């Protein structure tokens, strides 16, 4: 099972990442463009109601759909926690500047109107967050069926913001994206991390000598020939930024680029190599010496999917028998034959290693219904290990923990689900109930 563990989670994140990365490209294009319409002005007289705001020491969050208030407090809390960690790194003189505006757009249309990007582009790239005019803009997670990791996304955007605070110009797109990816997991995830699908793609490209050179990385990422090549650009940007971070500190490069008004000079200062040498060494040493983690999941993505979506390609190959058993399991589940339903799903899992987390959740639910709680919990633990962004699995875990009287762990699991899909049916109500019993619970993971 762990072979395919991160396949789905990485693929699921792919479009979101593309969206996040796309943001920096857009912001660079818009840097010299006319100022965008303000959030307050656009939503003045909106049928959704008045613009509402909440602020913390360094951020002010605005929203217009009353439902989006649900994430306002937790968003501020998460950003403040990230700020406490990032501030010393970016050496930001935050005491003297205005609070960072964070805007939650109620729908894609208004997001498109204010950002002046066409709806088609949003849909094509899956963009859900942007940093434009030093405003952090995110699409409300209400708009996505399975939500998205909005807390990580907003920190990613904040890193772009901080880079631009240091140097408005002179920072190329690869450096922007690389640095934002390194720090997006703050305050909880501080290590650089590539998903198995990204490692797989990198491995495949490396073996086929299709890695992108430094000059190519300077060109806009989303306009690469294929989505696969665009993603490769993001991966290489992260790997290079990480290499620079270890070499001399990536923030030092950014500061130097701002000071020297040239990234090439800053890179020479850091590496001691000329521009030409760096270009050669980028391919021959830096990328060549990257250690690719071994693992079946990486191997899986290193296969040739002829440019298609790996999950889709693999899904089509999925054994019909496996799908048949899953279907029989669903029929049995609907008729309340939970034990038999679980048996049929177990058969499905034996037939094929590729199956969506919803199957595993159904199996866990079936076991829970027949009183095999430990088995159910173990399956759900496996699901969140394989798919950490599966809000529904976190939600089921939380429910089980709550039933067992484990209120604190239940709250943490609820929070994890909340930070992915806060509008999941029933989640907010159960969190409210638990919080009424334990007023000290907050939106911290630990």
């Amino acid at each position, binding site marked *: 099972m762990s072979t395919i563990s991160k396949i789905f989670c990485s693929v699921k994140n792919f479009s979101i990442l593309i969206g996040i990365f796309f943001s920096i490209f857009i912001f660079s294009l818009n840097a010299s463009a006319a100022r965008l319409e303000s959030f307050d002005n656009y939503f003045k007289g909106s049928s959704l109601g008045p613009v509402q705001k909440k602020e913390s020491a360094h951020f002010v969050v605005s929203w217009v759909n009353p439902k989006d208030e649900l994430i306002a407090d937790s968003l501020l809390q998460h950003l403040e926690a990230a700020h406490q960690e990032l501030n010393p790194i970016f050496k930001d003189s935050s005491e003297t500047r205005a609070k960072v505006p964070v805007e939650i757009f109620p729908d894609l249309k208004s997001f498109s109107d204010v950002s002046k990007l066409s709806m088609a582009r949003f849909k094509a790239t899956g963009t859900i967050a942007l940093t434009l005019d030093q405003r952090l803009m995110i699409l409300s997670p*209400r708009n996505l*069926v399975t939500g998205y990791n909005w807390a990580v996304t907003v920190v990613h955007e904040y890193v772009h913001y901080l880079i631009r605070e240091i140097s408005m110009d002179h920072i190329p797109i690869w450096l922007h994206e690389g640095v934002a990816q390194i720090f997006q997991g703050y305050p909880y995830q501080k290590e650089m991390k590539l998903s198995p699908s990204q490692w797989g793609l990198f491995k495949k490209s490396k073996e086929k000598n299709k890695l992108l050179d430094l000059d190519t990385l300077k060109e806009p990422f989303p306009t690469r020939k294929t989505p696969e090549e665009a993603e490769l650009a993001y991966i290489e940007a992260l790997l290079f930024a990480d290499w620079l971070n270890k070499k001399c500190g990536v923030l030092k490069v950014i500061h130097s680029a701002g000071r020297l008004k040239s990234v090439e000079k800053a890179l020479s200062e850091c590496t001691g190599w000329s521009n030409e040498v760096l270009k050669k060494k980028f391919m021959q040493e830096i990328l060549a010496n990257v250690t690719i983690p071994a693992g079946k999941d990486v191997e899986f993505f290193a296969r040739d999917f002829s440019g298609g979506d790996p999950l889709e390609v693999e899904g089509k190959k999925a054994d019909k028998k496996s799908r048949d*058993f899953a279907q*029989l399991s669903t*029929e*049995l589940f609907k008729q309340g034959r939970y*034990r038999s339903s679980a*048996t049929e799903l177990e058969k499905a899992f034996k037939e094929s290693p590729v199956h*969506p987390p919803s199957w595993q*959740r159904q199996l866990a639910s079936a076991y829970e219904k027949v009183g095999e709680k430990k088995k159910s919990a173990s399956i759900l633990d496996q699901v969140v290990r394989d798919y950490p962004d599966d809000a529904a699995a976190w939600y089921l875990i939380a429910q089980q923990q709550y039933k067992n009287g484990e209120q604190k762990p239940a709250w943490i699991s609820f929070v994890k689900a909340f930070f992915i899909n806060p509008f999941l049916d029933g989640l907010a109500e159960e969190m409210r109930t638990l919080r009424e019993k334990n007023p000290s619970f907050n939106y911290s993971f630990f």
Partner: protein
Amino acid sequence: MLSFLKRELWRFRFYKSLESLAFAVLIFFAVTQFGFFSKLFFQAFIDFNPFFILFRNTCVVVGMGLSLTFLYFKISSILKIKISDVASEIEKQNIYFKEHPNRRGELRTAALMLENSLDNSSEDFQEAHLNIWNRRLPKFQRFLLPRREFYFSIALIFLTSSLSIFLHSHYVRTLPTNIQPWTPTQFEIRLPFEGAIWNTQPGALSGIASSEVRFKTPKFSWGLRTFLYVQELNQKWVAYPCKEFCELTLKERGQYAVGTQFFRSSFFPLQVVPDEAPKAVLMVKVDSEWLPATTIEVLNKKELLFQFSASDDIRLTQIELRHRFQDTDEVVQKWSLHEDHFKQELTLSLEGWKGGAHEVYLKLFDATQSANSAPIYILFADENTLREKRLQDLRAMLDEWVHVLGDLIDTDQDQKLAGGLLKRFQEMTYPEQEENSLMTAYIKELKSLGHRIENWAKFSPDFSELKKLIPKTEKAILYGLSLMFQEKTGEIQAAADSLHSSRDDLNKMLEKIREGKMDLNSKDLDEAFKKLASQLEEMQKKIRELPQGPQDDLLNREALQNEADESDNLLKRIEDIKKQAANGDNKGALKELESLLNQLSILSKEMERSLDQWKNNLDKGALQSAERYSKSLKDIQKQQEELAKKTDRLKEKAEKLEGDSQKNWQPIDPDKAKALKKEFAQAQKEQQKISEKLKQTIDQYDKDAEGSEWQQVLRSNEAKQSEEQISDRMKSSSDALNEAKAFESMTNQAEAIELLKNAQKSQQQTLDNIKSAGSSSSKPTARAEKVEIVGNEKQGEKERRRKIMDSLKQKVDDRYQKSHEHYFEDLLQR
């Protein structure tokens, strides 16, 4: 003071005027009442209406003249009243003067001074006098009240007018008490409809309400007028003066008499029958039998034969055959009539009827009222309804089988027979299906599997058998689910077809709009849009309802809804076009409409492609392999037939050798016997080859059908049993050939050939079923027509119906026709 007195002068005049008016009215009423009562008195003697009218009118004119003259004189005198008269009236009424009686007359003097009617010799005195009374004015300045006569006269007006009205409205000619002999012989009656004629009837007055009756006025005495005295139920006697005829419009039953002012005849009953609502019996023909007021289920039929018989006590004016479905109630056919009975047979087309409960009934009208007949309820099943029913049946049956699977899995895990398994089979019911359908084949297979599991559970609970039974049950359920999927895709196909036709309609309308023959805001276009919108919604719903595997229900429902809403883009566009057209932007609307039609065209093509893809997915080449299998069976059959001929020849040869040997009393020539044995060995080899070919064909077919949704029907137990039988016969044939038993071999071969033919036939039938299932939505007429009575008819009801029908068939004398019809109507309504 002058102004005060002048104001009171007008008030005084007003009171006086009202008094005068009251007296004028009194005079008028007195004279007219005299005229009225005089007229009544004289009417009892002479029948000369113009004189009475003239007399009454003269009385009215005289009354008015007298009143006006009186008023003229009174008003003239009122206008002559002066302020001094008013002052006198004030002195009479005002309490101030009662308290100061010595000052009476002083106000009048002052008023006279103001009228300048006194001489000018004492101007100073006059001035001083006026000044004094001006100062005293506030002490007595009150409104002049009406005199007592005023109240009297108003009361008089009220009384006289009330009395007059009461007398006019309540006066009845008193019924004389003296009796004189008179007997009614005959009368004439005219029914209440336009153009009705007078009919003579014998006896006392009788008839249908609202009819007019009359009889020749009997002359009792010279100089005395004849009256028709009528008392309707719970009413007072009313006298109707007769002229040439005594006439009456029948309203209510009661009694009547004829006579003069001073004597009358005995009382006779007045028979009035209330006007009955028209009646009808509507019948539908089911299996050569006419059924009234029933509920029938109609499957796939194009028309129904109806018959109705309607009647009314007066006259039928109109009959409407109406069709009611959901909120619509429309007239299918209309008859304008002038008869009291009407019978008709008609054919009602059911083309275009939607599935559901329909009502067909008659609405009948006579001259005064209308009524509805008892309806025929038609549960009409169109292709969609049939499909829906099939799906429901299939779903219910599958749910039961899912429990069977659950029981089997539980049994396997516990190694103990699940409690409810046997009971489940005992209670299990299977839906009735049309012949030669995939469902029939499927149900047959399920029944067979059910029997197998039931027998296993009853007699030999060997749990190792579950390893075979569970997969078989799983396959059966999966095949059922795929059948459901096919039905659903059929639904989508039907929806796509109707969408296609709507698009064509819109295209035609667009052409008309371009040519200026149609307006963008026209009702037809609006209707077409509505139809299109509902079809789009229906199709989206059906696509969403396609059976799927495990579904993720832990989602953000709002986002899910938004995604669904986004697919309603076409519906939004329709709304936009309507708005544009409503705002007068015809150019923009036309452009949008063209674009919408293009989009619809793309959607239709995509839909067709998707449906083809679904069908291909279901098939997975199984149909081609089935055809290959049929062809192979045919080849095997030919080979077997060839071998049979050869065996026949061998048999003849063997018989000939045997015959020759017996004939010549010599043993069989060993060379010839050896040659014959060799030929038998050769034939046996051929038989083995054919057997091998059959085995290979079966194996290949099994392999090809594996994984296909049609596996369950193509490789059914029945088919496999048949194949086993063929193999057995071939083996027996081969063994017989080995022993040179030609006759025995031939028997087995003949059986094998017959079985091969049956197998091909059965296979072809299955293939036809599969093909027709794939296009079931486009061939609704292929289904058998059916009309069934749905109501749970008990024996007694059946007999009653039979009796009514027999009664209807009877021919009776015209005189009894009416009562005869009443009889069967009563029976029907009982």
